[in-house]
């Protein structure tokens, strides 16, 4: 038994909440993994900021076409029904509320829904890409993340300490330990690993975890396949 979910398992869990036919943007890096775990019978349509709707998996090595890439500059392929468009139309989709879900990584998430995922501070070269656009407009903005930082500090906080990507934008967080909704400025615990107690989880979280109902029934077990 694992003490926490692998990245693949977090991505799997997030994928279970994506409806058939949903329009989805997956952030660069770890969130891209969510596409692999669509439940059988469901087919989401994936959007990438650089102007593609309806792309599929990576091509075989050597078969890349470098005019056909995603926002992470990785080569992709097309599914039937794909479409190309320019950057202003692409962000009209984002900002205009046409995406059903955006799934993003995070440095920190606050109980207010604030997200910090673009800058770790003033050092080095700042780069924002489409992060600040993606947190606005999508009907649902979810985060997938380890529950704590590499050195064990909470990433779910009362307030972000790193530069913000957006204010009050995140509505659900899938972590390595739990599934947590953000409602009315509170973290509401929905699911947790059976192996961890509520008090242990609370100790790893930088803000109060609320329950939506009686303690013995409000929280479901977070169960994923081995991945």
């Amino acid at each position: 038994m694992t003490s926490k979910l692998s990245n693949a398992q977090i991505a799997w869990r997030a994928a279970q909440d994506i409806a058939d036919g949903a329009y989805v943007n997956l952030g660069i890096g770890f969130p891209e993994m969510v596409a692999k775990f669509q439940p059988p019978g469901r087919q989401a349509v994936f959007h990438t900021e650089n102007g593609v709707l309806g792309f599929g998996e990576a091509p075989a090595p050597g078969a890349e076409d470098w005019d056909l890439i995603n926002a992470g500059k990785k080569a992709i392929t097309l599914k039937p029904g794909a479409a190309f468009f320019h950057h202003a139309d692409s962000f009209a989709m984002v900002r205009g509320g046409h995406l059903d879900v955006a799934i993003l990584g995070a440095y920190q998430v606050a109980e207010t829904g604030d997200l910090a995922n673009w800058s770790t501070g003033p050092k080095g070269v700042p780069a924002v890409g489409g992060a600040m656009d993606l947190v606005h407009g999508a009907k649902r903005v979810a985060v997938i993340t380890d529950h704590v930082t590499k050195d064990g500090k909470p990433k779910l906080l009362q307030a972000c300490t790193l530069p913000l990507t957006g204010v009050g934008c995140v509505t659900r967080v899938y972590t390595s330990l739990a599934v947590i909704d953000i409602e009315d400025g509170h973290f509401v615990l929905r699911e947790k690993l059976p192996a961890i107690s509520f008090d242990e989880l609370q100790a790893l979280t930088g803000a109060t975890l609320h329950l939506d109902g009686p303690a013995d029934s409000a929280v479901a077990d977070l169960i994923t396949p081995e991945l």
Partner: protein
Amino acid sequence: MDKRIATLAEAVAGIEDGAVVMIGGFGGSGAPIELIHALIDRFIATGSPKNLTVVNNNAGNGHVGLAALIEQGMVAKLICSFPRSADPKVFTELYLAGRIALELVPQGTLAERIRAGGAGIPAFYTPTSYGTDLARGKPVEEFDGRPYVRERWLKADVALIKAELGDHHGNLTFRMAARNFNPLMAMAAARTIAQVSRAVAPGGIAPEEVITPGIFVQGIVEVPAPAQEEALNRADAHYPEVTE
């Protein structure tokens, strides 16, 4: 994913009383005549939808399409740039009788407000209408020494549009100048229904030739050989047909 709707009646079933409805087209070019007529059929059968706010460039022509919708008394307010035509009698009479409201918007501002609604831009500045009656009451700001008028986005509950090809994902192409407002309205409505002259399987439109990506379209209904408003009017058509 399959966004096809079997019948015109089903396609217009969800439009409620008081809805804001964008209707594509510029004059008759690109006007979804069959969708409009299906809406009239529903109104005649059920008394609904009524009190509609309609967004279109014009106010209809003759006694078919948008003019027929207005003639039925279904439209409480029209937002348009040019409510004149060869035969604007229907709108003109209701307007002069004070029975239909009109918000007159310069054509480019109308297009940009609709695009802004679709693109999540709540307001923008334009030089258009500065210093004129149509700018009255609107905020004015100077940029780089030149005055501009602030305009708000325009959104709709439903858009009824006309396209040429539509695949099952809702990707659309348009025929010649029938494109006009149709792709913009698709972006700005919570629910966009496109009548398409031909429905094709996904992949039936080359990805580079898609004009309106399917994300902006909630349903397509196939209407082969759609009517042209201009041809109907030259034949003095009425909808519903006038019976002796």
